[in-house]
Structures are given as C-alpha cells and as structure tokens.
C-alpha cells in the first residue's frame, strides 16, 4: 500500500458494515425515530469518509461499533431525560428539545469523529515514518 493511497476495499466494507449496523438497529431494536436516522447518517458519513483513509480495518470497525453503542446509549439517556423534563416543564421544554437535540447529538458525533481521525492520522504518520 503506497503512502497516501486510499483504501477502496475498506470503503466498500465500511459501507456494508454501516448499512448492517443501521438495519440491525432498526430491525431488532424497532427504533424508528431521530435516533435511527442520526445513527444511519453517522454510519453513512463514517463509512464513506473514514473507511477509505489509511489505517487498520479492525480499528475502523471498532470505532464504528463504539460509535453506534455510544449513539444508542446517548440517545436513550437523552430520551429519558427529555421525557422526564417534558412531563414537568411542558411545552417550554419541547421547544428547547427541538432546538437543542441536534446540538446534543452533535457533541458525541463530532467528538467521536475527531477521536477517530486523530487515531487514523497517528497511523498515517507511523506509516510515513516507516517509509
């Protein structure tokens, strides 16, 4: 593998994995709301933009899996919090929820994105160092 070359086989595998994760969440957990949409899009972006980069395939699959678990837990906890808050605060909270939920989701997605790129950039540097 030449330095700087992107990995198409990883890209294809990543897209398959991402689709599989999204489908599994939808089919087995019966999720059909913002959570599944958020995770499906996360999987799509991650698979199409991170998987082609240099780095071990196992590392990428691991981060993708971790991302799905974090996203699921995050959304579940946030849903519980929102449910509780909405029952006591009513419409006011609903407005806050509508505006804030994308940003709340953004926090874990972007953070995970940043961490994975850091890990892969370190791999890239090691490869360059070896060359």
């Amino acid at each position, binding site marked *: 593998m030449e330095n*700087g070359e992107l990995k198409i086989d990883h890209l294809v595998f990543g897209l398959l994995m991402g689709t599989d994760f999204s489908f599994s969440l939808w089919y087995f957990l019966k999720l059909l709301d*913002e959570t599944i949409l*958020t995770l499906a899009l996360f999987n799509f972006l991650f698979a199409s*933009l991170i998987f082609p980069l240099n780095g071990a395939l196992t590392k990428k699959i691991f981060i993708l899996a971790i991302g799905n678990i974090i996203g699921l837990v995050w959304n579940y906890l946030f849903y519980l919090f929102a449910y509780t808050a909405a029952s006591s605060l009513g419409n006011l909270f609903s407005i806050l929820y509508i505006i804030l939920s994308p940003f709340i989701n*953004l926090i874990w997605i*972007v953070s995970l994105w*940043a961490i994975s790129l850091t890990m892969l*950039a*370190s791999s890239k540097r090691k490869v360059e160092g070896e060359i």
Partner: protein
Amino acid sequence: MITELLEALLLFLTFLITAYLIRHYIFTLKILENHKRNKNANGMENVTYQPTVSILIPAHNEEQVIGRILQGITKLTYPKDKLQVIVIDDASTDNTGKISEEYSNEYPYIKVIHRSQKEGKRGKVSALNAGFKHASGEIILCFDADYYPQRDIVEKLAKNFVDSKVGAAQGRVVVLNEPQNIVTRLVALERIGGYCVDQQARDTLGLITHFGGTVGGFKREVLESLGGWDESILGEDTDLTFRVYLAGYKINYVNDADCYEVAVKSWRAYWRQRYIWAKGHMQCALKHFFKVLRSKNLSLKEKIDGLLLLNLYFMPVLVLFSWIIGGSLFFLNSSSWFSMVWTSIPVSFSFYSFVGNFAPFFEVGIGAYLDGRTRAQWLIPLLIFTFLYNIPICTKALIDLLISKIFRKNCNHWTKTVHSGNGNSYITS
C-alpha cells in the same frame, strides 16, 4: 393560512441547509478521490512561465509587520528583473513609510507610494487601486502586510496565467500564530477546511473558486477590463471573484502556494473581522445574484455553486430564522404531516451543514487529516461554538446592511484589523 406559509418556509429552509450539506459532502469526497489519485497538484507542475509581476502591498500603520513581509519579499526566488513590489503607504502615522523606504533604497524593485491624510485612509481597496496605477507587471499580485510569503510563491502563482482562460490565481492561507490561543487554533482549523478542501474541490470540479483578497492575483488585462477594485463594496474579493467569472474567465487555486497570516487572537477581533466579511459578502450577493442567474459565461453547475457561495453568509441568519419558525409552528399546532418535517429539520441540523466558518465538521476533519494534523482534530467540536458566534455577527451585518439600503446611508465603514506583529516570533528563518 399563516401555519401553511410557515411550514412551506421551513421546508424551503431545510432544503437550503441540505443543499449546502450535500455540496460540502461532494467537496470532501472529491478531495479524498484526488488524494487517492495523488492529484493534489493542478497540472501546472512542469510549466515554466515567468511573466513580469507586480506585487501590491497596501499598508496603513503596519510598522509591526511591514518589515517582515518585505524581508520575505527579498528572499523570493522569482527573477528580480521581472519583479516589481509596490508598497502603498496609506496615510500611515507610524513608521510604516520609513521602514518601507529603507527597503526601497536597498532593493530597487521595491517602490513605495505615500498617500497623504487627504487621499488615503479610505480602506484597502482604495489603496490597491492607487497601487495598480503604478504597476507595470503583466500579472498583479496582492499581499496583505501581515502575510509572510513562501519563497517560490510567485512562480507557483504566475505559471497559472499561461492558460488564457485563467483570469486570476489564488494561493493558500496558512495561520502562522496557530499555537497562540484557542481563537487562533480554531481560525486555523477553519482555514484548513476552507482551503484544503473547499477551494481545492471547487477548483477541481470546475466550480467558482473564491479569490480571497490576498495571496493571489490577476492577469493585468483582466483587471484593467474590469476597472480594478470596486471601492463601493466591502467584500472586494468576492466581488472580483464574480466579476472575473461573469467576464468569462476562471480562477485557479494553488494549494501548494502557501502564505502565512497572523490570525485574529481575540473574540472581539474575530467579531470585527467576520462582521466586515459578512457585510461585504452580503453586498456582493445583492449585486451579483441575478447577474449569475442570467450569465451566459457560466455553466449550470457554476451558477448553482456561485449562488450557494454568494448566499453563504445569509445561512447563519436563516438557521436562526428556521429555529424561530420551528418554535412558532409548535405553538400553532401545525398539521400532522408536519411531524415528518420535524424529524428532517433536526436531522439536517444534526448533520451540521455548518461549523466554524460554515463548513461541516467532516470537511474540516478530513482537511486536517490530509494536512497531516493529529492533535488539531480534538478541537473540531469547539467549532460549533464559533458557528453559534457567527449567528449574531451575520444577523447584525444583515440588519445594518438593510438599514443602510432603506435609508440610503453609506455602510462601508472600513475597520482595519490591528496587527501587533506577534507572528514574527513564529518565523524561524
């Protein structure tokens, strides 16, 4: 009736936000593809073309930095017999003129134009036009006084003009004082996304490459035919970008033509700088929107990209607007089908068409990765807050612009960014 109107408006805003998201996704994919094919270069590597070049450096009270750029200029590898450097001392009250004269006395290709208090201080654009009158080169390059050029930057920019269709060329801006504080680090990340991905992808895809106002230049005949810089507009760089394309020329982006800038280091300075950019960009949108639509020199994809680029600084305002509409619809008991849109709106936002200076997080991240950054990635989540900061900046710029249009007041109050010269310590040789 009101509810239906608001729903339609919200749908339209969602469409707009998604359009930007798709555009940036395509840009990011294109850059990855280029990287795979090792096509970061623009095909000009083996071209040798050395026309006469004039470099314009407008400077108003730049004593802290003018010596640094002129020192950099003396180290340029471009043949000095083909080089003319014009420092426009724009009514400086400090030692800018004196320092420039010292260089001028030592290096004959450096010329200084002194503008009096009466004719000067009308902003960078006015100074550039004054300098252009004295320029004799076939190619006119512009550098801000706080920039520090790479030694072979002129060769890298000038050879693009061998193509008769190229009206302008733009180099890459790299932040010199990136480690200084959190603001400079975030600005550096914005720059990486903007230049390494955005500009490069637009150039490769044959879209509208943006002339950034510095670290770039024009073919003399093109600039003359366009009448130089438009002094009635704040966003002279965006204005010239569109005038070049509307005249049937294109702008080349040269990613390896680096020039180093000292980024703003405080949130207050960031506000001032972005406010000017936003207002200038909005002025350009009003000026060129219909011209772009009607142009026969632009292809369909250039028109779409041009319109998206022109309206970029309206987007933070529209995002705010969509939140307000969304909240209002919630209280107006919107129709049941609207629940579908409710989902799509947050998801559109979730995918974060914009962070920092209006690029999605994945674009900035991939740009930083390809630029060989590791630790800088950690700061990407903080770019969300710079986008939030841009909402009031752009909203104020729009309100001020509208007020000035309605009451026909001159809104072009040019505010100079103060350069303290602290970037000097980051230059090692």
